[in-house]
């Protein structure tokens, strides 16, 4: 007779990861409180300790007339202050948590209202593309901004290759879902995977790019490697990172932040100083590393001359 030995630890005793994580946070809060009593040192990690240096994998690029002449932020600031919830919700976490992420091999699935459905290797997507330096202003919905020297190519190039049909009114993009590699996805902070979308004319606009690099080098993991969207006239959360799927659809998709809090985040998310976030004013911004919210935020993040025409006849209050 086969007598089954029970496993050393019954599965019921193994702490669920969620419970484990929240227990850890609880302990951290208690510990923080205890620390105050003891007057021990602040536990926050020093940002400098985890700054990756430029890694030296260079890309062949050419300059673009669409770049701003404003001075870009430093490599270390751009790569240590990231809203990339897949690698942690605090902005300094992705730099540490994405360090061992391997964005290769990488494929992008194309589906929906288009003639060329299928799966492309990243190499196929990049084949024949001339990479450009696009130095763009980047305005986060949280009220801070940077100037970032992206490397990329127009999204319109890829869209054309996919041959969308006349029913393709919008394009949606999806981030990789892989909690093993993206530890932030192990907690239900957002409804994973992250989804974003653009109206077709926004997607075809020459300012809209797919970025694969930063400062002339291959895109660091924490910035959305290997392939991310950049739409400089919209709040940063529209610029979805680590894209694995592109789908052409006829109806306006529900993007992740709108799904999470539709009273605070919309679909269009155009930078608009006249429309407050419910919790803070968008009239001014902090150009990092500035301490002060003194810089006037411009409509469409200063790209109004190029893009305001896309929204003629629409209520500007609805465009946040």
């Amino acid at each position, binding site marked *: 007779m086969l007598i089954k030995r029970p496993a050393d630890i019954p599965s019921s005793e193994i702490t669920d990861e969620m419970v484990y994580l*929240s227990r850890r*946070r609880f302990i951290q809060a208690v510990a*923080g409180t205890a620390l*105050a*009593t003891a007057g021990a040192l*602040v536990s926050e990690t020093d940002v400098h300790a985890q700054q990756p240096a430029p890694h030296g994998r260079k890309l062949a690029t050419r300059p673009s007339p669409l770049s701003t002449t404003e001075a870009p932020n430093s490599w270390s600031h751009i790569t240590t202050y990231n809203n990339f*919830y897949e690698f942690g919700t605090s902005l300094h976490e992705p730099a540490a948590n994405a360090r061992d992420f391997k964005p290769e091999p990488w494929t992008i699935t194309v589906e929906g209202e288009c003639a060329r459905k299928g799966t492309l290797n990243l190499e196929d997507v990049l084949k024949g593309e001339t990479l450009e330096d696009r130095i763009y202003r980047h305005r986060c919905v949280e009220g801070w901004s940077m100037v970032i020297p992206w490397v990329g190519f127009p999204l319109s190039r890829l869209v054309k290759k996919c041959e969308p049909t006349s029913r393709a009114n919008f394009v949606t993009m999806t981030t990789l879902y892989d909690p093993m590699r993206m530890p932030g996805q192990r907690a239900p902070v957002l409804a994973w995977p992250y989804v974003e979308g653009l109206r077709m004319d926004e997607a075809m606009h020459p300012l809209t790019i797919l970025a694969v690099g930063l400062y002339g080098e291959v895109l660091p993991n924490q910035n959305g490697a290997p392939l991310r969207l950049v739409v400089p006239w919209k709040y940063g959360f529209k610029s979805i990172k680590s894209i694995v799927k592109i789908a052409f659809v006829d109806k306006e998709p529900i993007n992740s932040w709108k799904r999470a809090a539709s009273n605070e985040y919309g679909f269009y998310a155009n930078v608009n100083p006249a429309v407050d976030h419910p919790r803070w004013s968008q009239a001014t911004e902090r150009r990092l590393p500035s301490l*002060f919210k003194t810089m006037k935020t411009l409509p469409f993040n200063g790209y109004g001359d190029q893009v305001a025409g896309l929204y003629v006849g629409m209520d500007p209050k609805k465009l946040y």
Partner: protein
Amino acid sequence: MTRNQTIRCVLKPIVFLAALVPALLLGRRLVTGSLGADPLAEITNGTGLWALRFLAVTLAITPLRRLSGWNDLIRFRRMIGLFAFFYSSLHLGVFVIADRFASLGFPTPVSWETIRELAASIATEVYKRPYIAVGFTSWSIMFALALTSTTGMIRRLGGRRWQALHRLVYVGAMAGVVHYWWSVKADVRDPRAYAVVVTGLLAFRIVVWTHKHAASHTPALGRRAITTESRDAG
């Protein structure tokens, strides 16, 4: 050295200096430029979190005292409570200067008109944003308690009234946690942890009061012992 002297001349200065350490460290990181890309966010979060932590420690003194029997702990409560006020004032001050005053463009020279404009801008934010309103409530309570924290004020108000007033710290702590909860975008795990801590500390009071209430219905011996013990339950 008597126990009294040890507390007054050794332990209190140590606690005082220790409580300043987070502020000094933040200041040093600011001066050396090692706060990263967004120094303001670090300072805002840091001062806010330490305000909450000191509030929690203040609330922990009574339970710790009762559970450990170390009654001298009470002698540190005012100082720690004042440090909660100190950190929350830094937190508010940073918002007033770096957010509100900065958005006016740092007008100089500072005239009465400027101050009026700044006050209006702060009031608008408090009125328009619930999370700022609760945060401001928490700070206002701490401000009132700090003003009335002196021995002279205790005497002037009388112990009973003073204690009733200072029970507002429970509201202040809850408002602080709500402020933190409402300020995050999506990830409420950290605020939740603080909520659990503060709820636990308040629950302790409820348990004590319930016992006290129950005891007041039981005659004679037990009643006397419990009431004298729990008079300073605040």
